[in-house]
């Protein structure tokens, strides 16, 4: 539904030119929710603005619903933009229009009749739970309500694609949850294709099917959300994941970690379980088969897109041979094993 082909964007010219995007290839299939995550300044905003050409790419092609936007005249592009709703971090509602009139704006721009406007706006207000607020002005609404108005407005022209530019970044966690639920509902009921950019893993985890990781203007990683959360392919991906899961070994342990194993030292491992390995009784098996005791330092279970993800940081206590065999056994299962280091016995 959305296809970016070798899209690059450069600001300025000559020695002061800044490369905001480099060779972005991105495919978003119809009906999916695709997230792009990255730190601030990574090029997320430029990327999403290139999809509806609020920013015109310096090179490359942008194709939405089979039509190449980058090849269109200004007036064709305006028509094509009706197929592409957009919501923003700061909502961008018109302060001097009521909720109803804000939602009606795209239809006014399309010169729809008053009757059509009423017929289209009322169900959208219903869906976003704003029917009783329709005569109010944005200043009287909470952040979550404002974003609901913005969503209703973005849907008024019956687009096929919804672009979300940090749509929940200005909202508190509870409101974020309800807005994400609304986006998911829209995706499922209307079959709308959603491209969203965010710096919050929570957003990706809750509603995205696929995720791209952007850094320095490049898409450095792309994966199904379940795969990304179980085994990110890049260092940056792991950093995002660890930061999100907050599953770091305790600081005092990290300070005692040695990269090399030695006499009387034990490996400390981070285990990531997913799929079948979640339900395998691994710990007791290590004790039984290898005589290795497992001391769990931290553990967490997350459910991501219907898949269960277990994380654990544990110390394997046993002789060097025993722990080596235990590690081999662990690696033979469907789980990701990372040896964080070795720690000297304290007892």
């Amino acid at each position, binding site marked *: 539904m959305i296809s970016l082909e070798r899209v690059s964007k450069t600001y300025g010219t000559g020695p002061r030119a800044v490369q905001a995007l480099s060779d972005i290839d991105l495919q978003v299939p119809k009906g999916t929710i695709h997230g792009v995550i990255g730190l601030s300044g990574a090029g997320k905003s430029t990327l999403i603005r290139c999809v509806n050409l609020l920013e015109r790419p310096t090179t490359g092609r942008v194709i939405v619903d089979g039509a190449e936007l980058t090849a269109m005249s200004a007036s064709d592009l305006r028509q094509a933009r009706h197929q592409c709703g957009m919501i923003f971090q700061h909502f961008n509602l018109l302060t001097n229009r009521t909720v109803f009139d804000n939602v009606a704006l795209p239809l006014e721009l399309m010169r729809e009749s008053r009757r059509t406007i009423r017929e289209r706006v009322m169900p959208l207000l219903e869906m976003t739970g704003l029917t009783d607020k329709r005569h109010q002005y944005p200043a009287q609404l909470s952040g979550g309500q404002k974003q609901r108005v913005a969503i209703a407005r973005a849907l008024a022209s019956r687009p096929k694609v919804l*672009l979300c530019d940090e749509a929940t970044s200005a909202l508190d966690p509870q409101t974020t949850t309800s807005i994400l639920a609304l986006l998911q509902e829209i995706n499922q009921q209307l079959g709308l294709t959603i491209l969203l950019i965010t710096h919050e893993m929570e957003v990706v985890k809750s509603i995205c099917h696929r995720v791209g990781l952007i850094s320095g203007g490049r898409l450095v990683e792309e994966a199904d959300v379940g795969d990304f959360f179980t085994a990110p392919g890049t260092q940056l991906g792991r950093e995002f994941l660890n930061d999100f899961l907050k599953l770091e070994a305790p600081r005092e342990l990290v300070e005692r970690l040695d990269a090399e194993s030695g006499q009387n030292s034990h490996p400390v491992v981070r285990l990531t379980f997913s799929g079948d390995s979640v339900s395998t009784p691994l710990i007791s098996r290590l004790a039984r088969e290898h005589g290795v005791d497992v001391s769990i330092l931290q553990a967490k279970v997350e459910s991501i897109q219907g898949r269960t993800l277990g994380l654990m940081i544990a110390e394997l206590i046993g002789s060097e041979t025993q722990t080596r065999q235990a590690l081999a056994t662990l690696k033979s299962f469907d789980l990701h094993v990372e040896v964080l280091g070795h720690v000297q016995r304290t007892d």
Partner: protein
Amino acid sequence: MSSALIDLVWQSTLETLYMVAVAGIISALVGVPLGVLLYVTRPRQILAQPVVNGILGIVTNVGRSIPFIILLVAIIPFTRMIVGSSIGTNAAAVPLTIAAIPFVARLVEGALNEVPPGLIEAAQSMGATPMQIIMKVLLPEARGGILNGLTITIVALVSYSAMAGAVGGGGLGDLGIRYGYNRFNPTVMLITVVVLVIMVQLFQSLGDYLVRKSDHK
């Protein structure tokens, strides 16, 4: 206070109101579009035209830098062409209008500049044409700021109109100079000043009321 004096003050008040009204209305009709043009032709704006913008900017600045008393006499030939005479209340309204247009334009430009760029971006994402952005986003969102600018202009016009006497335009300022100053009549001076103060107060209060009423920020 003699009835003759009351008549004179009343007559002068009407003259002032007339000049301010004519100059206010025409300068708004010309100045608002000019202000919009100054804003939308800026670089990276919706109708970016750097050359046009530069020229408009210079013309506007020239208009604003000529002292009013000089403008009043400098454009006498133009005034005669427009109203057929170089003296009288109508003749004074012409330079007042000319002076107020660039003033309004800059205030409107400033008001438009206060509209968050995100709103323009949102309208563009909906496929709005530049004209639709002006009519449906920029002007309605800047309504409060524009009304505030027009209020400032009206008040400035009341004050400028005091110089209209130089071309026989009449009005309260002229009355104050001729009767109050030249004929050493402090009572007349005081009355004209009091009437002007009341007039400005009323205009300002009315303007503030309209701004409050029209803006939902």
